[in-house]
């Protein structure tokens, strides 16, 4: 028993470290690749680390209209995202915190963070914050049914909403992602991922153009360490969703456990798959322009249709 607890602790600590360390890197890689594709030099892939270090050292300005919600939000967002991150399989097929929740818990924990972020957007009284909160909650609500349909499809295939079981069912069938149901579900989840992580064409993570921003508008009043926590959490959320996508559909390289030299191999596979997905995201962001806000529901309706197709395909093919 104590041995199981010990191994559990080690697994959790390792995945925690990986999440914290890798997330800014993914953001940096995406930014650099995007810059290169647009024939700019870009700030370099370790810029997000530098940003975080700088922000953690700075002081903060707290709006005088804000309440304790404003101070609690960065922590709630940060911890709920990390907790969600521990519930997904990254290197080993068994999620370290799989007992505490499966894919539904991951979605709802991210929802908890978003709920508080939206509250803090309205807390300062600035109308930009309210604008961001309103749009974020709208878009995430519309993304939800498509996400749930895709996840139902995957979970039906695996017979479980436990991510350990989902990844486990996919192991050994490295080419299963070519099945029509899997392809449709993947496409649906990929669209949801774009909407949830605030990427083009739904939102532009690089803009502070006042009237088009969504996520950035909510956190406009944050500064210093609190801003760092929120930015860090945002990149961890992006990493979590990307990992979820690749490991549910393409589990190649997932190791049976965290122990032994297989772990290094697993990390290598993870990095390679993340790089591939990042390239796809960069390509999508570069060839598309940001959509008008009221075109986004159409995009999410496409995602919902894809999800429904995925579901129907599970028993047609």
């Amino acid at each position, binding site marked *: 028993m104590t041995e199981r607890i010990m191994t559990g602790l080690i697994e959790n600590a390792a995945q925690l470290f990986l999440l914290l360390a890798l997330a800014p890197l993914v953001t940096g890689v995406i930014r650099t690749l995007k810059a290169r594709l647009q024939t700019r030099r870009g700030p370099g892939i370790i810029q997000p680390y530098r940003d975080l270090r700088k922000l953690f050292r*700075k002081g*903060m*300005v*707290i*709006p*005088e*209209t804000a*309440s304790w*919600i404003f101070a609690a939000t960065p922590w709630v967002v940060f*911890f*709920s995202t*990390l*907790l969600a991150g521990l519930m997904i399989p990254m290197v080993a097929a068994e999620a370290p915190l*799989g*007992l*505490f*929740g*499966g*894919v539904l*818990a991951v979605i*709802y924990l991210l*929802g*908890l963070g*978003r*709920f508080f972020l*939206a*509250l803090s957007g*309205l*807390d*300062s*009284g*600035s*109308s930009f914050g309210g*604008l961001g909160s*309103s749009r974020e*909650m*709208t878009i995430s*609500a*519309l*993304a*939800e*049914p*498509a996400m*749930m*349909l895709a996840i*139902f499809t995957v979970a*039906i295939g*695996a*017979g479980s*909403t*436990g991510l350990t*079981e989902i990844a486990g069912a996919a192991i050994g069938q490295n080419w299963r992602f070519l099945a029509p149901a899997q392809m449709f579900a993947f496409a649906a989840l990929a669209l949801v991922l774009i909407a949830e992580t605030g990427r083009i064409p739904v939102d532009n993570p690089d803009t502070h153009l006042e009237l088009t921003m969504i996520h950035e508008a909510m956190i*406009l*009043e944050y500064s*210093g*360490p*609190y801003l760092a926590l929120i930015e860090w959490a945002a990149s961890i959320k992006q990493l979590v969703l990307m990992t979820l996508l690749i490991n549910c559909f393409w589990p190649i390289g997932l190791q049976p456990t965290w122990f032994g030299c297989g772990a290094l191999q697993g990390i290598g596979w993870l990095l390679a798959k993340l790089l591939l997905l990042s390239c796809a995201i960069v390509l999508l962001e570069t060839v598309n322009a940001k959509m008008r*806000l009221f075109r986004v*529901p159409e995009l999410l309706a496409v995602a919902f249709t894809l*999800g429904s197709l995925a579901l129907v395909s599970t028993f047609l093919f």
Partner: protein
Amino acid sequence: MIADLYLSGIVVWLAGAVASLALWRQPAAARRVACGAALAGSLLDLAGSAASIFSGGPTAIGLPFGNPVFVWAVRLDPLSAYFNVTLAVLAAAVSLYSFGYLREMEGRRNLGAFGFFFNLLLLSLALVFTASNAFFFLVAWEVMALSSFILISFEHEKEKTRKAGMLFLIMSHAGTGLLLIAFLVLASAGGSLDFSSFHLLASRMAPLAQGTVFLLFLFGFGVKTGLVPLHIWLPEAHPVAPSNVSALMSGIVIKTGIYGMARVFFDFYGAPPIWMGTVVLGLGVASALLGVLYALMEHDLKRLLAWHSIENIGIILMGFGAALMFRSLGQPNLAALALIAGLYHTFNHAMFKGLLFLGAGSVVQATHTRNMEKMGGLIRRMPMTALCFLVGAVAISGLPPLNGFVSEWLTYQALLAGFGTTQSLTRLMFPIAGSLLALTAALAAACFVKAFAIPFLALPRGAEAAEAREASLPMRAGMAVLAVGCVALGLGATWFVRVFDPITQQALGVRPSSALVMARGWALLPGTAHGGTISTAGIALLFLFAGAAFALPLAMRWRRRSVTGPSWDCGLPGLTADNEYTATAFSKPLRMIFSALYRPRREIQAEYEVSPHYPSAIRFENEIEPAFEKHLYGPLWERIMAAANRMKGIQAGSINLYLTYIFITLILLLLFGVRG
């Protein structure tokens, strides 16, 4: 012992009702007696029904004396006891709250009458949940309807309140009419009005009669629950009542319909045909989605909460519908899971909706308005109310680790497992219902960001909000009880599921709780072949640990480096309440996206004096179309009025004519009697 506790609760409520009526000239005494009796009765009822759940079997509760006036048939079986516990916990918190809440009405309103009907309502609710005879059930049902009607119309000097009360009364009686027919059909088939003779009776009837009785019960109880499309009275009646009554109405009175459905579907029916479950699941999805969509458009805080009751009834019925379908498909374990999901959500909704209505009551009492657009910044003036309301908002949005998440998770698991139970196309209903549940939950979260942030955060938008005062101690205590309930039902999920064993044993013959709990009571699992697991207690512990170990020390350190300043607001100086985002603005994107449903109408009128570029006043009006009132009830109302007009002819006012009618009726009855 159980019977003694239960009966003493009834007696205390009765005594409280009579005593507070007798004390109507001394408002302070009437208030104390009414609330004290309500509280004591609730605690006694809680003790009795909790003991009954753990004793397992049904307890018949007789009176030690006969009486010629009414039938007394009361039986406390696990299902009744479960709803009684829900009632008792909510009623205890509301009574505690009422000690403070009613103080403001002293001298202005007749608190003696209020106390009478308040205690009578609790008494009739307990009897509705335990009646074991159709006649006695309907009597208790009517007493409940009439006392709720009077409590709803308590502030009767307002035209709107009177209209809402009448609408409630009419719809409620239409529902009772349907129930009466249904019970009579059952009684004529079974030869007795006793519930025990109805057991599995409905399934032995001919398919047509079976289906008709089912629909009569569904719509008869559906009126009371606010099932779409029978919901139109609910968002009118719940908000106009005093807030402690609103909490009871939304928390438990609408659950009498849920209780009735549970009793009929899982006691009177055996394995039903599959279409019945499909209808319930479909109506549940429709109620959930429409409820939350209309809630989003409200900026009246209490109306918003009332619409959410319709949404949550929908979620409960999704569980019930799935349970019925699993029963038809011969899957008792899955049926038990879905039934547990529905019943769990029933209790949860009583806790968080009661809490939210009590919170709204404190806010309305402090700001003298129900319009959110005139509130704001209350978190500083009313910190405790704000915290309790936040707990309720997180719980109702289904976010971990609170109770709403647990029951929604169970519902998802039941729906997910449903896909594999049949090969027909019906199975597509399960994942589609699941994805629409996801949409509902996410929209509810959006709605509660609005419902918490607009009244409680940022700057006050009105003078009264700026002067608001925190609720009194008993009011805060009442809210705190329910907030603790929300947390406990969330974190203690693995402990709480054991309560359902006697209920599922009685209804479906299975005891699933040992299959639902694993890892020494830390994690909950759905008990299906390879279900996922969830541990709300674990999530909460990790949050607490991380908060204590990292957040607090770091926040302390960072506070030395932080300064307070005006909101940056993109560099615009001078933030005022007029700049703030409003509730209407917050839901504007959804109003545009779902405009096909809302058909919003907007009117802007500007008045000019010199040039159209310098308007002197602008009037803005914005409303959405009430689809059901316009397209369903409007035409129905016209038909009824037209029919009534045509029937005016036979009611000419002449006494000779009426005597003829009586004579003809008598002859017909005699003929009928002779032939029969």
